[in-house]
């Protein structure tokens, strides 16, 4: 009772900080002061090495991609009707839409599910299809045609992207070689300088070939000079009108 009044605090320990302290398992006080702003970027983590792709992985990838390609082109791949509107199919669909070539004409009539599936009440609840769609087994001509077309496409799809790139590169190299060799089919010994000049010319051709195709020209084209180029054009033209206000 005596300690409750003025001397109330004295019995409770002196020199305490007055706020809770964080301590670790050994009783050491942990620092809770904020030492400046948080770092802008997290610490650099040492990323693991890129895994090597073994021959088994390549075999697995080939089979996996063949199956994925089959599903995409099969009638089992269903889209919602709202997904086939304008602006949803990418560049190819837009080209088809604007040029008037319909997808059906390009790819042929699409297959129905009932053409490729055996719809029997034993395996599929009858409420999911009508009597017209029901098939009791056996292969239809459309089903065989579908499998034959898938097998034909498989030959193309088996080409990995790398092979396609290599094929395109080969075609491109052959095409560019034909253009150059058409002018100088012989060879003979050429000096080193001539070789360097040729290489430089080939590089320039490579860089500016697109421009040539588009008809933009070479050095005297203002578009290649950059945004700070001042061609001194358009300042001295007197457009007339005097000092009248322009509306």
């Amino acid at each position, binding site marked *: 009772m005596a300690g409750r009044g003025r001397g109330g605090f004295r019995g409770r320990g002196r020199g305490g900080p007055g706020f809770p302290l964080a301590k670790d398992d050994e009783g050491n006080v942990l620092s809770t002061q904020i030492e400046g702003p948080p770092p802008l970027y997290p610490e650099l983590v040492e990323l693991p090495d890129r895994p090597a792709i073994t021959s088994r992985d390549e075999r697995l990838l080939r089979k996996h991609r063949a199956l994925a390609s089959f599903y995409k082109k099969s009638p*089992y791949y269903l889209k*919602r009707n709202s997904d086939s509107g304008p602006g949803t199919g990418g560049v190819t669909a837009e080209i088809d839409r604007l040029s008037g070539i319909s997808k059906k004409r390009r790819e042929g009539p699409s297959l129905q599910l009932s053409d490729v599936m055996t719809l029997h009440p034993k395996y599929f609840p009858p409420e999911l299809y009508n009597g017209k769609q029901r098939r009791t087994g056996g292969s239809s001509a459309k089903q065989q045609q579908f499998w034959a077309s898938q097998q034909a496409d498989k030959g193309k799809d088996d080409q990995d*992207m790398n092979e396609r790139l290599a094929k395109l590169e080969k075609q491109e190299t052959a095409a560019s070689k034909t253009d150059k060799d058409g002018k100088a089919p012989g060879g003979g010994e050429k000096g080193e300088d001539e070789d360097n000049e040729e290489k430089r010319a080939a590089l320039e051709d490579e860089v500016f070939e697109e421009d040539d195709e588009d008809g933009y020209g070479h050095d005297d084209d203002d578009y290649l000079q950059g945004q700070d180029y001042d061609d001194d054009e358009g300042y001295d033209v007197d457009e007339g009108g005097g000092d009248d206000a322009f509306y």
Partner: protein
Amino acid sequence: MSEQQPLHPIACQLACLLVEEQLGPLCKEVCDLLLRKETQSLPELSRGTGCSRFELHQALLVLIQHNCVQPYTLVHDEGGSTPAQTVFQPDLRSILYRFRSARCLLHIIDTWGHIDSPATSKIAECIIEGLLENGRLTSDQLCINVAGKLDAGCKNQTPHKSIKRTLCQLISNHYVERAPPADLPMPRVTVHPKALSKRGGMSSSAKAAADQAENVRRLDKVGYGKERYRIPNDLRLDDDSSDCQSASKRQKVNHPSGTVGAELKGAPILWRVSFEEFNRRFRHDACVELIDQAKDGKAAAVAAAILQKTRQFETILKEESSQPTSAGIIKAALEEMKSRDTELPDIPDVAEALRQLEDDDLGLINSAPGGPDGTTYQIDLRFCISLTRLKAMEAIVRQRFGRLGLRIWRVLLLTGQLEQKSIKELALGDQKEVRQLLYGMLKAGFMAVTDIPKTADRAASRTFYTWRVQPESMTEKIGIDTLHAMFNVASRLSVESVLNSELLQQLELENKAIFKTHGQQLGRLKVVRDLLESSLLRLDDTSALFNDF
């Protein structure tokens, strides 16, 4: 057909991603709803998805065709006026097994020589491929599909007889099974015992009636279980060399009356790939690989022979151990394997090799004396798989927490529960570092902490905290983490495809100009795709080890 098991959210998300990639956005929408709600009828699905009636029916047909959804007949009351209703339930495991399709094809290519002549390896591969592509097919459809694949560009036509013979081989080896009918009873929902006691007990008579009704309905399911691998008469061939006849004799069963065993007149038989059997083979391969690493190639060959002979007697995927087999039968199996695969090592004394395996401290093979054929041997499959998992866990702990973390983990695995100070002394680590690693592993779910208070107030200063490793919970955690990683990788792959969709379209059209302008980008895309897809398939191998075996 397994009992209903709880669906983890990340597994559901991964399944939806896979369905969208392979079967389209419409099927993904329906599958998403089913995975969230688990069992839905047709009106409920129509309300939940918002699709038109036609679209919903199409999506359900495709999902059933590809074994992603299974229809069941729900009987509300026995002998009542309410008609039976068809409900649809997603089969999450079947959906996730689709990641393993490529691995199944490679397994057939690599191991068909042990089952039949290598000449029919291509036919077997095409049969499995045709079933994976189309989900379910009749035998006639399969013959035409396979003949079309084999004869593409060839003048000679593959006779349907050889295709049917190979199909019989696949069925007798359980790689191919009959598709389940649509009128099976729903699988039993496992209720926690505490929930049962909380609900209050039914009266004994009502409970007995319900159990009897349940048993009657379950006859159909048992009937399908026995019919799964039965080869029908029209598929059975008359040649003596075929194994179909012996397989059909082994599988002859009595059909219970009034059940699914009595086939409907004129009903076709749809065949599908049995992922359960493929998983069983992969599980056995994992056990053989472990024994090969622990001992040598000869021990692995003996183990492979035991598993090949006893595989037919396994009824569930996660068998505890193989059937007991005598040394004579194992020797005969080894000779048969050697005749098909000359690369197998020669084992002159099989009994001695078995005795050496048994004497090993690991305890991978157990023996039992007596019996008419002498001492019998069996492989402890559960122990083999748990050892394989432990090795994988060690690799994960080492990669994430370093060598000290692995040392701490091993110390706790061997000793059980320990305090932090004892761990520091045994693991030879710094106090601060050990504490950081312990809390890091606790956060990752690899450790568990138990507090043992000295006083009733459970004050921290007067409480012992002990650490321990729980392999079972760690297995579950790693399994979920693997699925999560697969989802992340698959999402990234999908994003890369979407970002580069225009480029891929131009590549499809073989536009030469894109090579010059976007050659570097295409090269980068190719590398990224290869890495992501191969990582996805490797993660599926890890997921199989922790979730399915």
